[in-house]
């Protein structure tokens, strides 16, 4: 199954003031995406899915991810309206069975109505929690981890499964073992997200962390994961392990190429403007707004084609000459925030690849051994 993901921010308003949040300057902005814009967005989502199917893709899925801000801090009535619009639009477009709706939440607002909403609309829940306190704070400055833990219990009591995202920053890098242990103890699939660039108005000294620390934490996390007996996914390490194994097998992955493969992730701001994931926050890189243009027009627009050229240039600069090039599809170069130049590798991913490669080397897992392992029962 291949997914087209729509990361949608109905609002940047949030009930928390996480010190590192890249939406820092918009967290008190209560404006919401107008319903008229939402309907146009639904039209775009359906049209893009149909375009992919018409192009011959088999098994395409569309995943809508409500993001923010805090989606659950919005009025439940508003959430019900946009979810109803989405479901009816998907049904009318014949893509309802291929549609998954997710919500990324800080899980501090979990009223009975919101629990009902999750259940009624079959929302898949991603919980943002760092485990280590001090960064994810309420407006009054209080820590939120204890509340989130209680609300995780309430999700479990309703039989609602969830995944977790932890941000890697100054407070979490040194505690990576404990954080892994926490999610593993709860058998929750986890994703670790290196600190994202954001506005300078934030107190950078409180959370900023260098590439060396990120690499160190991810390498240590990999070792911890390898030694763990708990069956859980740890992203992005699971994908990176596959890439390195592919490298040692001498196999290759189809290269990341938006021109031939289409888009996999769209980010939508409250005003309906569209962005690529690594260009969110840079208003000059907007691809256009679904409030003003149909998706077909966006795809034909100058801004979109300029974006494709930037992607091409990035791949050429970073991936040319990389020893993992064939095994890696090149996507990591498009996710890390760094200034690319010819010969510079992905600052974090490439170094973790090498750590994983050394790990496999220590285990004496060459091509022959890996092929034998692949043949063992799953």
């Amino acid at each position, binding site marked *: 199954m291949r997914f087209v993901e729509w990361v949608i921010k109905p609002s940047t308003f949030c009930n928390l003031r996480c010190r590192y949040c890249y939406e820092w300057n918009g967290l008190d902005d209560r404006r919401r995406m107008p319903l008229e814009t939402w309907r146009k967005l639904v039209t775009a989502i359906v049209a893009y899915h149909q375009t992919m199917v018409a192009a011959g893709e088999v098994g395409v899925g569309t995943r809508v991810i409500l993001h923010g801000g805090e989606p659950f801090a919005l009025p439940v009535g508003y959430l019900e309206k946009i979810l109803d619009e989405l479901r009816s639009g998907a049904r009318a477009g014949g893509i309802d069975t291929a549609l998954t709706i997710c919500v990324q939440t800080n899980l501090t607002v979990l009223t009975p109505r919101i629990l009902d909403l999750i259940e009624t609309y079959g929302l898949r829940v991603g919980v943002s929690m760092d485990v280590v306190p001090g960064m994810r704070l309420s407006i009054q400055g209080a820590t939120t*981890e204890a509340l989130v833990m209680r609300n995780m219990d309430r999700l479990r009591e309703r039989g609602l499964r969830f995944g977790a995202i932890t941000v890697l920053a*100054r407070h979490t890098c040194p505690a990576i073992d404990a954080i892994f242990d*926490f999610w593993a103890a709860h058998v929750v699939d986890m994703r670790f997200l290196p600190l994202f660039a954001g506005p300078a108005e934030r107190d950078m000294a409180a959370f900023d962390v260098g590439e060396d620390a990120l690499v160190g934490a991810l390498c240590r996390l990999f*070792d911890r994961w390898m*030694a763990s007996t708990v069956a859980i996914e740890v992203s992005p390490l699971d994908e990176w392990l596959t890439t390195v194994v592919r490298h040692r097998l001498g196999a290759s*992955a189809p290269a990341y190429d938006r021109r031939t493969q289409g888009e996999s992730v769209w980010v939508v701001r409250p005003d309906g403007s569209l962005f690529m994931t690594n260009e969110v926050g840079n208003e000059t890189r907007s691809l256009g707004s679904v409030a003003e243009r149909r998706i077909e027009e966006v795809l034909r627009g100058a801004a979109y084609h300029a974006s494709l050229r930037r992607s091409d240039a990035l791949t050429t600069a970073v991936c040319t000459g990389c020893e993992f090039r064939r095994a890696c599809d090149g996507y990591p170069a498009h996710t890390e925030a760094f200034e690319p130049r010819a010969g510079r590798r992905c600052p974090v991913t490439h170094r973790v690849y090498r750590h994983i490669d050394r790990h496999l080397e220590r285990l004496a897992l060459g091509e022959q051994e890996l092929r034998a392992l*692949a043949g063992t029962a799953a």
Partner: protein
Amino acid sequence: MARVISVGIVPRGTYDFRGLRGGSVSMPLVQRVDVANADTLALELWVHDGQVPNGARLVLHAASDGSADGSDAAPLLQTRTAAGESIANFVVDSETVLPTFQLIPIPTEHIGRRLALLLEVSGGPTDGPKLTLAIDLLVRETAASEPLVEPIITAPDAEDSASSACMGRIATAAREALAAARPRPRRYPRWREIVV
């Protein structure tokens, strides 16, 4: 760049004091941890699970360990400063939401050459606490003014890492790697999640 060494000094274990009713006990968890060269110290307390009934509590104390090299004499474990204040402690009681994680800074000026950790446990009227916990010690080796921390990468021994779970993960990766190598004229990248 400052470097922080994370040392697991108390492996994950369960401490069962449910039979402790009304009384209290104090026990050393760790002794003679040499921290002479540390500029800053912090404990990472991880309480994985537990039950703490009303009136019961558990206090983790950092202590200066007065043990002398080669001496069999009972060590002097000092949990208070000269001013009579606790050097560093953390309380787990019935109000504490579990599981929890707590970073506990230890002022190095109140620790001599060696560090010890003590557990002080009080039972409630009907029952005592039971906790599963682990403790790491973070030791920063450079000037205290250095703000950045970087964990040391410690690879497990090869024989440890080649567990069946580890090999199972690698086998899964190998199957996926070989599957992706099959001809696919068009595909989307396997983006399961997003980067924002």
